[in-house]
Each structure stands twice: as structure tokens, then as C-alpha cells.
């Protein structure tokens, strides 16, 4: 048996963003006509790797070979010229144009003067036939279903004779029937020699569809395996397998008083039937994949999203929260995962940022600047914030120090419940540790903390309980020794649990 020629070779691909290395010397060979699955947790480096292949990012070092030849892919059009096409999660289609106009967008076939619509229609028709769909070349995109739009994206890739097709979680938007159609199509493309890189969080699909698997973790290549040689449990273990180190302080004693109780929270098209409670001194974790509704849950509680239903109790009192101002009044605090986009005013200095929400405490008509500076100085000392001076604009602080300022900003509202959304994303290890110890010291004093995180180590190290969300619902609850990465992964991916029985509040039937 001779080795098939690799269509795509990655040799020691590394990538860093502003000094933080996110990919460490990844070397992989992908053979022509195979379906290669790419697995990894959020932040493992999957998207970065694919964006390097498709020309959106530039690698920091290493080499990319296509069909044995070293290539430079400096833009998506370079990738296109090499026969690499990406089907994005968010479709790039123009709603008001027809199928064929979208497929030939930017590369219209022309006659001597005018567009050659006839040729474009004909070619589109051929492609759609190949894909075995009933779509008309003249149908408008805005009239199509999600699955049909995906079909158009695939046709758009094929019109350029793509040899390598990258699919970024293509099934998340599809119903189970549509998934089957897609899988048949992938088999067909494969038979024609097209290579497919397939990202999915759904281990079952990967098992069913892929020939081989790349497993990434923390930017490192963990393994490249034949799918036939690995089961789903091992996939999950390899994705997350890490030893816990000593960054986590001991957990605080949970008190009996319930600090926050949420009943039957629902947000249109996003969340349904969310109920939970957090006690004083408790850390409640929220796990789940991106898009599972964790952030939306926090935003709905804070009055940042319109709730369809849902009752909220703070310290056993029913409260009416119509906007975030109400939430602040009742002692709720929420640190968004998007520190720069939603959290901090980057051209404000430290005191201006820290006092922004609690400004009324410093202002009787006029702002008492001395007092805001004094308070900011206290937080600088408390959290060991590193800044050239109080007057430094937030822009010039490192991610970790920005996060500490963000924390100060919300602690200055004297909250009873602190909701932290990805509190350590983009933060160095040391600051992580400081934040964990701060959470512990605040829970000692009776603060209730909700931690939304994709970092499972963080949830396991901090939380007393973990709720796992999936598709806008709470899929299950894990306590104490049941909180481990496999369990979280199983629930988040919608698999049946293998290990100890769960105190599951809601079990969605997955098959």
C-alpha cells in the first residue's frame, strides 16, 4: 500500500497575537480526498489554524505546502487561487441577490460588454445538479432556508474548483435531516477527490463522518488519529486532559441564604426554562459551548435582554429588573466576556473607569475628583494593578490589568451577586491566580459568584456546582466530585453520560 500524496502539509505552524502564542509548531499532513476532523475546546486554536490556511491570518512561523509546493497565503484570494475555500459559520451571501448572482459575485462571467447571465445560470445549474438539490439558480437568497444557503455557499466554493473545503461547525445551524443531506454531499465531494477539513463540537458527528482527526489543546497538537481507532469518550479526554495545578484556593463555606434565585427564565429564540439559585458564599459555574446561551442568560438577568418570562429574587425578595440600572440597584454585577467591547472605556483613565457605574456616590451635583482618585488608588493597591499612573488611559494597560480595573469598577457598586463571564480570557497565568484568590476572599465575605467559563479547569477549580448549558437550556447540574471535564463535555455536547448518575434537572433527548 503506497502512501497517498498529501494535498496539504503544515510544517511547524506557529502563531502569536501580541506576544501570546496561540499555536505551537503544528505539523500535520492532510491527504487528498479525506475528511479530516478538527477537535478542540474553545480557544484551543482550531479557528486560528483554519484562518491561517484560508489566508485571514498570517502565520508567525512555519510553512504551508499545497500539493507538495510551499505557498504563501496572504489573503483569502490567495487561498481561493490555490483551491482552498472556507464555508464560514456566518454566511457571506447577499440576501437581495439571486443564487447565481451570489455564486459568481466578484467573478462574473462577461460577454463583450455586458454580463453573460446565460452562462452563469447554466454553470450554476450544473453545480446545483451535482449537489443534488432542487434549488433554482434564480431563487433569491432571502427566500432560502439556512440549509439551502449553506448549499449555495458550498456551490460558491466549488465554482472555483476548490480542492480543499474548510467547514467551520457546519451542522450547528442544521436540523438532523439537513445534517444527513450534508453528510451525503460530503461523501460525494470526497469521492470526487475534494479534501474536507471539518470542525465540530459534536463528537458523534465527527465519529460518523471523518476519516482522521486532529486534536488540539491550548494551541498544541495533541494527536492525529484514525477515527476508527478512537471512541468518543477518548476524544473528549484528549481534548481536555490536563492536570490541575495549585492555582486554586480552597472553596469557601456556602451559607444557607439564597442570594440570587432565577425561575423559569426565557428569552425568545435563545433561552427557555432557565431556573437556578446561588447562595451566599457559593461559586456557581456555567459551562457550555459558545452559543449555548450562557452569556445570554446573564444578560437577561441583568436587564440587558428582553425576557419573555422569568422571575428574579435577590436575597429572597422578588425584584423587577427592567434595565441594567435596576440590576445594579439590587446588587447584581456583571462582567462581560467582551472586556474591551462592553466593559471598559478605553480612553478613560483608571478613576474615570472605576467610578463610571457608581458615579452618583461621588457626585452631589459635581464630581468629587479627589474622592474618585482615592477610591481608585485603594483598588490599585487591593488588586495590585500595574499602571504608570492613575491618569493612564486603559488602552495602555495589559489585558490582566484591564480585567482588574473592570473588576474594581463593578466591585465599587457593592454587589451582592457577581456574575463573571470568561473572567480570565486573555489574562496571564499569574493574574488568573490573583482573580481566583479574589473570588475566594469575596465569597468568604458572603458574596455569591456566578462564573461563566469555557475554561473547564477554572470551573472545576472554583465552583461548588456547575450548570451545563446546551442550546439555550440547562442540560444538567454537576456537584462536588462529579464536576470533571468529561462530564461537562458529555453534557455540553449532548451525549449520554457514561459515569455516575447526574442530578440532571433537564434532560434533552438526544436520540
Amino acid at each position, binding site marked *: 500500500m503506497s502512501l497517498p500524496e498529501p494535498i496539504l502539509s503544515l510544517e511547524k505552524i506557529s502563531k502569536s497575537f501580541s506576544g501570546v502564542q496561540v499555536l505551537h509548531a503544528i505539523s500535520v499532513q492532510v491527504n487528498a480526498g479525506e475528511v479530516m476532523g478538527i477537535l478542540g475546546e474553545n480557544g484551543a486554536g482550531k479557528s486560528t489554524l483554519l484562518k491561517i490556511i484560508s489566508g485571514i491570518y498570517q502565520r508567525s512561523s512555519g510553512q504551508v505546502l499545497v500539493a507538495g509546493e510551499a505557498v504563501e497565503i496572504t489573503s483569502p484570494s490567495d487561498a481561493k487561487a490555490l483551491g482552498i475555500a472556507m464555508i464560514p459559520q456566518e454566511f457571506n451571501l447577499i440576501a437581495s441577490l439571486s443564487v447565481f448572482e451570489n455564486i459568481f459575485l466578484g467573478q462574473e462571467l462577461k460577454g463583450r460588454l455586458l454580463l453573460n447571465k446565460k452562462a452563469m445560470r447554466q454553470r450554476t445549474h450544473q453545480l446545483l445538479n451535482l449537489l443534488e438539490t432542487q434549488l433554482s439558480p434564480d431563487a433569491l437568497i432571502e427566500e432560502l432556508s439556512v440549509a439551502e444557503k449553506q448549499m449555495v455557499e458550498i456551490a460558491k466554493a466549488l465554482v472555483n474548483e476548490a480542492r480543499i473545503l474548510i467547514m467551520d461547525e457546519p451542522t450547528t445551524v442544521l436540523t438532523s435531516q439537513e445534517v444527513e443531506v450534508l453528510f451525503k454531499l460530503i461523501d460525494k465531494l470526497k469521492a470526487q477527490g475534494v479534501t474536507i477539513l471539518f470542525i465540530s463540537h459534536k463528537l458523534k458527528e465527527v465519529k460518523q463522518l471523518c476519516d482522521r482527526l486532529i486534536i488540539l489543546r491550548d494551541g498544541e497538537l495533541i494527536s492525529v488519529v484514525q477515527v476508527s481507532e478512537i471512541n468518543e469518550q477518548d476524544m473528549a479526554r484528549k481534548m481536555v486532559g490536563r492536570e490541575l495545578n495549585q492555582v486554586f484556593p480552597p472553596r469557601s463555606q456556602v451559607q444557607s441564604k439564597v442570594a440570587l434565585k432565577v425561575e423559569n427564565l426565557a428569552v425568545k429564540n435563545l433561552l427557555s426554562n432557565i431556573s437556578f439559585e446561588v447562595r451566599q458564599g457559593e461559586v456557581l459555574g456555567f459551562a457550555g459551548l459558545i452559543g449555548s446561551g450562557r452569556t445570554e442568560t446573564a444578560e437577561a438577568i441583568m436587564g440587558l435582554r428582553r425576557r419573555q418570562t422569568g422571575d428574579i429574587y435577590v436575597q429572597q425578595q422578588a425584584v423587577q429588573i427592567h434595565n441594567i440600572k435596576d440590576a445594579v440597584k439590587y446588587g447584581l454585577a456583571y462582567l462581560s466576556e467582551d472586556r474591551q467591547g462592553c466593559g471598559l472605556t478605553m480612553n478613560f483613565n483608571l478613576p*474615570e473607569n472605576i467610578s463610571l*457605574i457608581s458615579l452618583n456616590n461621588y457626585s452631589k451635583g459635581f464630581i468629587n475628583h479627589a474622592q474618585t482618585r482615592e477610591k481608585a*488608588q485603594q483598588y490599585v493597591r487591593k488588586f495590585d494593578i500595574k499602571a*504608570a*499612573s*492613575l491618569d493612564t488611559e486603559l488602552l495602555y494597560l495589559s489585558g490582566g490589568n484591564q480585567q482588574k480595573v473592570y473588576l474594581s469598577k463593578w466591585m465599587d457598586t457593592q454587589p451582592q451577586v457577581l456574575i463573571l463571564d470568561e473572567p480570565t480570557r486573555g489574562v496571564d497565568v499569574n493574574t488568573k491566580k490573583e482573580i481566583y484568590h479574589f473570588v475566594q476572599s469575596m465569597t468568604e465575605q458572603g458574596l455569591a459568584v456566578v462564573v461563566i467559563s469555557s475554561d473547564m479547569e477554572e470551573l472545576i477549580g472554583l465552583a461548588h456546582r456547575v450548570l451545563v448549558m446546551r442550546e439555550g437550556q440547562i442540560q444538567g447540574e454537576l456537584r462536588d466530585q462529579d464536576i470533571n471535564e468529561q462530564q461537562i463535555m458529555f453534557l455540553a455536547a449532548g451525549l449520554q453520560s457514561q459515569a455516575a448518575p447526574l442530578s440532571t434537572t433537564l434532560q434533552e433527548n438526544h436520540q
Partner: protein
Amino acid sequence: MSEVAKMDTKSNSSSASWVTRLPKFTLSNWAPLVALLVLVVLSAMASEHFLIPRNLTNVLRQVSYTGIIALGMTFVIIAGGIDLSVGSMVALVGVLVIMLLNYMGDGWMAVTVSIAAAMAMGAAFGAVNGLLTTKGKITAFVATLATMSIFRSLTLYISDAGEMVSQNNHYPDIGGGYWMGIPIPVWLFIGLAFVGHIILRHTAFGRHVCAVGSNPKVATYSAINVKRVYFLTFVIVGFTVGLSAVMLSSRLNSVSPGDAGLFYELDAIAAVVIGGTSLAGGKGTLWGTVIGAIILGIINNMLNLMGVSPYLQGTVKGLVILIAVLMQFKRDR
């Protein structure tokens, strides 16, 4: 200063503090003032008439009509908006004020009521712009472009396109009067700049204006009512337009509906931009705007004194705006 010193020992960079602060002061905060001083020196050298007190007070008076509006415009621009309707609004308020004045007859009472009405009308027209942008969710540029057209056309309709002349004998004393040798509109301009500075720098509202302009999403997540802030900035600029309309119409004792306030929006926006306020929003100062307005006024004055064709003055003004914006971009790099 003591807290700065404390922080420095912590971060082990005792010399970094004032060094890092220095360029910030020299470049962004002092550039307009330096430009003004250079311009004054050059003007004094170029024309012996420039430094004559009478010329200077004239320049300042001329500046104050658009300058007052530019103060309000500073709030709008810092909050991330723009108001193109101010010029037409000046004409509309001016015409309505003179109609009210003539209806009420002679005497100081009529003048007082009319001025109060002008401020209220200005604020109300500003509120219309504010509602269009917040409730109507129309971008400020488009909304105020539309009201610019509407206000002008209403002015012409109400006045039947004829010049409106005040019958009140006291009214000209407002815009034409002096106090301590300085024209009243100039006092108002400086006074409002001071009040505006206090509001922007020393009140919660001012802080919110900056936060909204810097990043409305961050402001929303910081429990700031973004729409209310945005709305109020339009009310503020409307209010300043009302005052400017009073100063202008009382100085001339009349309003010509077709010409009054023509291109004031350009002068006001130019003054704000030359004063160092970013059109992207989020930061700016009232003192910068005052300086920006004066720079524009001096340039106009010098071009007149030097006998440059009035048709070329717009070109010079345009170039100055471009230079100011280019310098801002450089600073942001």
C-alpha cells in the same frame, strides 16, 4: 501627586510617570492654543490693524455667534453625534423671536420674554433632532440633514421670505451692547464656555457624554441611559442655537430668513474639530472649541485685512479644517 508617587514605587518606574504624561500634554491638549498664538503673532506682523482693540472686539463678536453654537455642538460631537441643522435653526428661532417681540410690543418685558422663548424654542427644536435619532433610530447625520431643510423652509414660509425687522427699541441693546468695553455676545460666549466646561468635566452627565461617545456599548453595560444622554446633547445644542439667534437678531435688529445662519453648521463643526475634539467622539474640551472658533475668526479677519478675495476664504477655511483633522489622525497613530 502623592498617589502617583506611590504607584510608581510599585511598578518600579519612578521616572516613567511624568515622561509618559508629557507628550499627551504637548500634543493633544496644547496644539490648538499653540496654533492660536502663532496665528496671533503672524497676524500682528502681517497687518498693523490687527491688534487695534476695535478690530479685536469685532473679531471676537463675529466669532461668538457661531462660537456659542460650537459649544453646544461640542457636546453632540463628543457623544458621537453631529447636528447639521443648527444654521437653519438659527434662522427659524430668529424669525419666531422677532415675531413674538413685535406681537408683545415695546419695553424690556417683551425682550425678556422673547429671550426666554428663544432658549425654549431652541431646546425644543433640538429635542426634535434628539427624538429622531434616539426614538426614530435615524443616524444623526441624516436626521439633522432633513431638519436642516425643514427648518429653513419653515423660516421662509413663516416670514414669506421677507426680512423680519424688530419694532422693539430695547432689543438692539442685547446683541449690540457692551459691558466693560467688551460686546455682550462675547461675554455670553465666554460665560457659556465656562459653564459648559464645568458640566463636561465636573458632573456625572458630562462624564456620561464622554463614555457614550467613546463606546456606547460600554456605556450601556455600565448602566448609563445612552439614549437619554444622546437626546440631551441635542437639547443642549438647540439651547445654544436659541441664544445665538437672540444675539444675532438683536445685533442686526432683524433677521433675513434666507441668509441668517447660513453655513453656521460648518463653522461650528470646524471650530469643534480645530479645537481638538475628535469627530469619532469620546473626548474633547470646551476650551479647545473656544480656541478653534477664535482661530477661524482670526483667519477670516486676516484674509479681509489683507484684501484676499472673499471667494477664497472658504478654501482657506477648508484647508485649516483638513490640517486640524490630519493632525488628529497623526496623534491617534
